[in-house]
């Protein structure tokens, strides 16, 4: 409370390991919540963990006091879960998740009728998956996430790179530290799912199950679908604009609104917030491209790769070494093709995964 008074904290997160039994733990959590809200008048944000296997009644009561509830999925597949968290099962996790989802929809209907009805988990529910501890590939992880968004109306899925805390022998050892870049790519793809109307099948497939570490998922998609480009800024629909690398959902909105009154050119786009160094290969303004660029996969890929902000330094350099191996004969050729990147990946450069 004293932290809250001083504006040190905005909200708090209540969680617990299972003590005695799921019901007992959930009850303790509920009592803590009750005290915070009603005795200490804590008006901040509270994120509470629902304990898998606890009584639905308790979860519901807690839901009326908390802002957000979550149940961790921990690992994307049932197999992985069995191996590393033998006490948790898919079923006990998904059941309360469904309950909270139903609670939220019911509550929305209730709120339409009675405006003063108490709010049930107003900030939605979320879950978390651990990345890199088990051998699942990105395609499996993203498919699970997509299913969760579709079927359980989750607000967010969090991906957390595996950090080895207790050095147990059954836990994997990751030489390159936690797979932070992989986590980053997963989050990027997650945003594409939630705000950009992408589906997992477009980004990944069974034959290409992992994200390209050198390019973000959106650039990667665009490079494989050059037939859609270039896009005319002054005419293209909002959804088409969303698919252009370098245009975010906010800039896309601004473009759609701003072009009603004026024709837009590249200077305007820059002001609006479009990242032209990525977008310029894929767009035209009034029929003209920014520079005289080719619409060709290898050419664009090489140029995008030259952007130093895209990938961390050590990986960029490791990639560069690998590529210079292939190129050793030709002097100064900077043609980095996607096939080469794939080849270098299969050749097994030290990429923390």
């Amino acid at each position, binding site marked *: 409370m*004293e932290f809250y008074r001083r*504006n040190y904290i905005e909200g708090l997160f209540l969680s617990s390991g299972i003590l005695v039994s799921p019901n007992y733990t959930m009850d303790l959590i509920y009592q803590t919540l009750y005290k915070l809200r009603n005795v200490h008048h804590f008006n901040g944000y509270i994120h509470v963990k629902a304990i898998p296997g606890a009584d639905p009644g308790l979860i519901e009561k807690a839901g009326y006091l908390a802002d957000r509830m979550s149940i961790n999925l921990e690992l994307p597949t049932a197999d992985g879960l069995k191996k590393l968290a033998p006490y948790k099962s898919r079923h006990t996790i998904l059941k309360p998740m469904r309950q909270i989802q139903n609670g939220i929809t019911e509550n929305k209907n209730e709120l339409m009728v009675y405006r003063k009805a108490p709010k049930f988990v107003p900030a939605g529910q979320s879950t978390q998956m651990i990345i890199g501890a088990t051998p699942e590939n990105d395609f499996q992880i993203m498919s699970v996430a997509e299913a969760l968004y579709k079927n359980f109306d989750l607000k967010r899925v969090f991906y957390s790179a595996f950090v080895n805390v207790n050095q147990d022998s059954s836990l994997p050892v990751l030489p390159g530290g*936690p797979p932070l870049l992989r986590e980053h790519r997963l989050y990027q793809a997650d945003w594409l799912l939630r705000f950009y109307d992408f589906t997992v099948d477009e980004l990944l497939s069974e034959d290409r199950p992992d994200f390209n570490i050198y390019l973000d998922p959106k650039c990667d998609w665009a490079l494989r679908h050059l037939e859609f480009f270039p896009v005319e800024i002054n005419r293209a629909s909002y959804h088409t604009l969303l698919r252009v690398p370098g245009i975010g959902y906010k800039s896309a909105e601004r473009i759609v609104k701003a072009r*009603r009154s*004026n*024709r837009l050119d590249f200077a*305007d786009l820059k002001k609006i917030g479009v990242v032209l160094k990525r977008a310029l290969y894929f767009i035209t303004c009034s029929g003209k491209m920014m520079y005289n660029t080719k619409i060709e996969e290898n050419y664009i890929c090489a140029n995008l790769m030259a952007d130093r902000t895209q990938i961390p330094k050590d990986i960029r350099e490791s990639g560069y070494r690998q590529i210079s191996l292939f190129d050793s004969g030709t002097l100064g050729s900077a043609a980095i093709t996607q096939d080469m990147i794939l080849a270098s990946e299969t050749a097994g450069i030290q990429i923390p995964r």
Partner: protein
Amino acid sequence: MYIFVCEDSLEGIFTGVYDACASKLGHRNIRLCTGEPDNYELFSEYIPVTPSVEKTQKVVNTLVTRFGQQFYESIYQAAMSGEPRSRKKMDKADAIYETILLALANGDGQKVLLSLGEPCVFRIFELCRATNREACHQLQFLRFSELENGVLFATVHPKDYVLPYLAEHFTDRLPQENFMIYDATHCLVAVHKASMSYMLADASDLDLDKIKRYSENELEYRKLWLTFFDHIAIEARRNPKLQMQMIPKRHWADTPELSRFA
């Protein structure tokens, strides 16, 4: 060319807008300028503007009734920006004046604010965005400390004039507390008494020694917070660059957990 020189405040700018419209010199021949110009132009007449509450109120009324509260708020936020004047960018008062003229000609304020292709509207958009960001940052990085007499006190150094926004937020959030927020850049203070609304006051005669006298628990809690802050971090995920992106360094002096490194 006639140039109206306004004071850098809402009143100054709005009075400038009013005077410019009332002068009947023709909009094309008029420019507005915030603060004394660095360099005087040849063949231009400079007209000083004395801020007037009455004229400001008239402009505000026109904006609110003709174009709605939202339009007025955007203009207000733009006017509250403390961005230093630069020769490369359009002057604040001038951008406001031109945007208001556009809205008057067009009739639909909301629509005008969306046409970012217009330089003046884009400038308003830019200023608004900056002010909003600053307000958001200040909300998050403001830290209260408890004084001897139980009052919560916080010092902030905002770039823009966001004190009313902060006071509003904390009145809603800590209704049962006595608190003061001291804006050191603009030398203003917001005072809130438990279960009442807040007041803004001039802070030039604020006793700077008195606000250093903390209550006995204050340092204890500060220490607890620092310990918590240090231990919640996951070593494998330390990323100082990202942290600096999230909390720009200019905020560090006012937050106890980071002032140690500043």
